[in-house]
């Protein structure tokens, strides 16, 4: 009986909670894969994002100087060098508010790659890298102030294989 009541309450609570979800446009990040990197070697971390249905955000290279580009800022760390961030090309799209104008935007799913390179001296283990994705969304009739989505991903650093030992050339034996 208690189980039945609890289930009913949970069901409706979940429904209510769902309604309390983010209002308006949102960009969400999918859990990033844990990338294993060898000390001193570079690796790419793919970060996947999703723009809510019905909205678009500017690409990293919007077509107007007045538009706010989507930019991922990764916090510098002492152990891992953060390299180049690679953004996907946006789609050229027209919207109801400006049918003659093409905007370069991201809609739906898009991926941003971050190059990381742990220092040779860094200890092996798991490290968390944090940052923010700044974006500005619009729909067909309105725009929304820029937002910053917190981003984090794990980098697992593995020990570099030991350097091959040099065998000293053996001097020929004199017989």
């Amino acid at each position, binding site marked *: *009986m208690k189980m*039945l009541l609890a289930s009913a309450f949970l069901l409706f609570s979940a429904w209510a909670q769902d309604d309390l979800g983010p209002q308006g446009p949102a960009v969400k990040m999918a859990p990033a894969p844990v990338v294993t990197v060898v000390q001193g070697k570079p690796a790419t971390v793919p970060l996947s994002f999703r723009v809510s249905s019905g909205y678009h955000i500017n690409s990293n290279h919007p077509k107007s100087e007045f538009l706010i580009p989507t930019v991922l800022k990764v916090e510098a760390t002492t152990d891992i060098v953060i390299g180049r961030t690679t953004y996907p090309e946006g789609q050229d799209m027209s919207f109801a508010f400006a049918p003659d104008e093409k905007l370069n935007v991201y809609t739906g799913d898009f991926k941003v790659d971050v190059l990381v390179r742990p220092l040779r001296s860094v200890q092996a283990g798991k490290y968390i890298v944090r940052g923010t994705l700044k974006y500005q969304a*619009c729909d067909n009739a*309105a725009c929304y102030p820029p937002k910053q989505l917190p981003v984090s991903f794990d980098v697992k650093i593995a020990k570099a294989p030991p350097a091959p030992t040099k065998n000293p050339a053996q001097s020929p034996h004199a017989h």
Partner: protein
Amino acid sequence: MKRNPLILFFIAAIVAAMLFAGIRMARNNRANGFAKGQLIGQLAPDFELPALDGKNLKLSGLRGKAVLLNFWATYCGPCKIEMPWFVELQKEYGPQGFQIVGVAMDDASTEDIAKFAKEMGVNYPILLGKESVGESYGGVSVLPTTFFLDRDGKLIAREFGLQSRSVFVDHIKKAMSQGHAVQAQK
């Protein structure tokens, strides 16, 4: 006394539904209620902001004129569509005691906002907005957001997002027909 599981389930469902309705109402009040329930029909919150020409403009200084108060941003495409209409409407209704006031709600530099306004041929004052002013109007989380004030400074309507030109004309005519047309104070 034995409790009927179905009745208890029904009661739990009603309680949960009431909770859900309450949450929804609270959210709606938070999002719209301030403007819908309290702001419309009331005197528009007064503010004084710097304009692109370097002078300050006080909203209450426009008392006696009907005012269209447009919150916009340079990054807002739909706002860009409305601006040429506003230019025309200012020309058409300005002589009858109507004033458009744009409030730029973005982080762009004053130079960029001025450049944008010049490109759009804006013929009405553009003010450099502050978050606190937006909040006094119930929070401006959607751009464009446009308010209409009658000649007494009372808020008579609000529109979110891009609207048709005729919607603006209707509100402007209504705003001009209400309140007292007195000489605006300087």
